[in-house]
């Protein structure tokens, strides 16, 4: 049995047809009957990609977020990310992987979710394999399991930015577990597994624009709204306590994103290099665009602006990483930089929700720009690399598919997040810490420690 993580954009059949176009690294034409091989170069690359997606979360994301909160809440963010990651990692091997990638290839609920046949990796041995996108090349299934684990973990912990500085620790962990089970797993299945709904529709999502960013961005927004704003929000300054930490975090996010995007190619070949260079250029353009936007509108290009723009560009290029040419990547990144700047500067104050660290403004909005933009930048005439027959590629057609994916993700994640928050509130007697706890800071009140001492 093969794993069916795909680039999206094509049903399995058309994908297989498309493969020769990707076989740029096979010196000789692939003989029909040749048994697929595991290339240790691919394995090495995927092991590295897996490692760096982990470092993207711990300490990357943790620092990016941690620098943006007040000094009294830094450890709470760090702990939430660390233990959130740890919990989801274990849930992933327990049932996540199985529900996302195992199960019948059609019928029943197979368009939405897999089954429990690989509970605790039952049946995943040293010999089992996962398919890549090139005929003739496979990966050890455990490599694929571990790589995918990292996606589950970062997606879930991304949400923490929306509820920072006020949520009960236990309530957060419960929320993450529920949301992971009922939103992350089905979305991953729908987009990346052979029988999945969006996979079948041909949605393009190279590295998780929909599964990771829209999914978590919407969940963060809903959770933030249900939770209500922090004490003092829009009344008193809540400035970031240490932008150097945020910068280090941004650097590690960028670094890890190379594994995230280029690793999603599952092989080490020329298309991996496409994804890699796009993952350099889109954030570069996003950073410059955001900085320029700030310079024009407020007179200064700021450090926080530059890194925020880069993250916006990274988010937007995620679904398009292996479909866009360098020109497309630069334009997509720049647009994301400007639109996300607008989302956090104008949209958020307008709607008055307290998405503490702008998960929705950057991952949600950037993810939508990326998902839709992918349809455009994948066009061969614009330098893109679409799946299948390039001549037959239609921007409009693909755009509608992408839009459908976006709508499904927004609704699905939003509904699950809402229900999960309500459940958690009921169980924990409210999801917020006490007022005194919030004003003393969560480090002391929830974790009994302080980050900085003389």
């Amino acid at each position, binding site marked *: 049995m093969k794993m069916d993580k795909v680039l999206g954009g094509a049903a399995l059949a058309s994908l297989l047809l498309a493969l020769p176009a990707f076989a740029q690294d096979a010196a000789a034409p692939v003989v029909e009957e040749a048994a697929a091989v595991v290339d240790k170069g691919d394995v090495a690359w995927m092991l590295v990609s897996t490692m760096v997606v982990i470092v993207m979360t711990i300490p990357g994301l943790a620092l990016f977020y941690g620098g943006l909160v007040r000094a009294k809440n830094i450890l709470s963010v760090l702990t939430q990310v660390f233990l959130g990651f740890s919990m989801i990692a274990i849930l992933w091997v327990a049932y996540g992987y199985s529900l996302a990638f195992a199960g019948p290839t059609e019928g029943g609920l197979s368009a939405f979710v897999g089954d429990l046949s690989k509970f605790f990796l039952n049946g995943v041995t040293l010999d089992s394999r996962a398919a890549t996108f090139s005929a003739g090349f496979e990966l050890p299934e455990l490599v694929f399991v571990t790589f995918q684990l990292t996606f589950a973990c970062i997606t879930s912990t991304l949400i923490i930015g929306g509820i920072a500085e006020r949520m009960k620790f236990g309530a957060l962990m419960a929320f993450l577990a529920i949301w992971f089970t009922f939103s992350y797993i089905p979305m991953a299945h729908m987009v990346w597994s052979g029988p999945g709904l969006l996979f079948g529709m041909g949605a393009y999502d190279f590295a998780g624009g929909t599964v990771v960013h829209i999914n978590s961005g919407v969940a963060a927004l809903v959770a933030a709204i249900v939770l209500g704003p922090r004490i003092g929000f829009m009344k008193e*300054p809540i400035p*970031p306590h240490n932008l150097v930490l945020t910068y280090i975090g941004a650097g590690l996010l960028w670094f890890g994103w190379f594994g995230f995007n280029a690793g999603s190619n599952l092989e080490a070949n020329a298309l991996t290099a496409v994804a890699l260079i796009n993952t350099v250029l889109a954030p570069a353009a996003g950073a410059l665009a955001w900085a320029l936007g700030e310079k024009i509108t407020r007179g200064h290009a700021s450090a926080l602006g530059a890194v925020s723009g880069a993250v916006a560009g990274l988010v937007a290029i995620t679904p398009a990483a292996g479909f866009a040419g360098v020109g497309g990547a630069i334009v997509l990144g720049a647009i994301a930089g400007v639109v996300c700047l607008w989302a956090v500067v104008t949209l958020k104050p307008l709607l008055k929700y307290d998405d503490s660290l702008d998960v929705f403004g950057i991952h949600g909005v950037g993810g939508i720009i990326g998902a839709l933009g992918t349809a455009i930048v994948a066009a061969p005439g614009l330098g893109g690399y679409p799946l299948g027959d390039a001549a037959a590629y239609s921007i409009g057609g693909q755009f509608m598919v992408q839009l459908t994916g976006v709508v499904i993700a927004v609704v699905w994640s939003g509904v699950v997040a809402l229900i999960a928050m309500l459940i958690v509130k009921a169980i924990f007697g409210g999801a917020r810490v006490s007022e005194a706890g919030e004003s003393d800071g969560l480090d002391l009140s929830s974790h009994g420690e302080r980050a900085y001492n003389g």
Partner: protein
Amino acid sequence: MKLVVAIIKPSRLEEVRQALNSLDVHGMTVTEVKGYGRQKGHSEIYRGTEYAVHFLPKLKLEIAVDDSLADNVSNAIRDSAQTGRIGDGKIFVLDLLAVTRIRTGETGASAL
């Protein structure tokens, strides 16, 4: 004895220290403080939220001196801390009832 308390701009510390040295005043205690006054602050913007920063970094110097020196010290600080721009700070003089040098237990002016 008097306690001369001066709020100055951080960049003037070195000048003031030297001015006091030339008066043979070799003791002082310095605290980092934030000042609020006529000098306008500035605004900082983080991810679109603007913060008016009213409080500006200043240094507070505390110098215990014998009565006879109080005026000289005040004047020396005034002259060496002055930039002529708003926010230069203030000098306050308080009465000091007693002084003890902890190391020796000496008291009074000789403890300074």
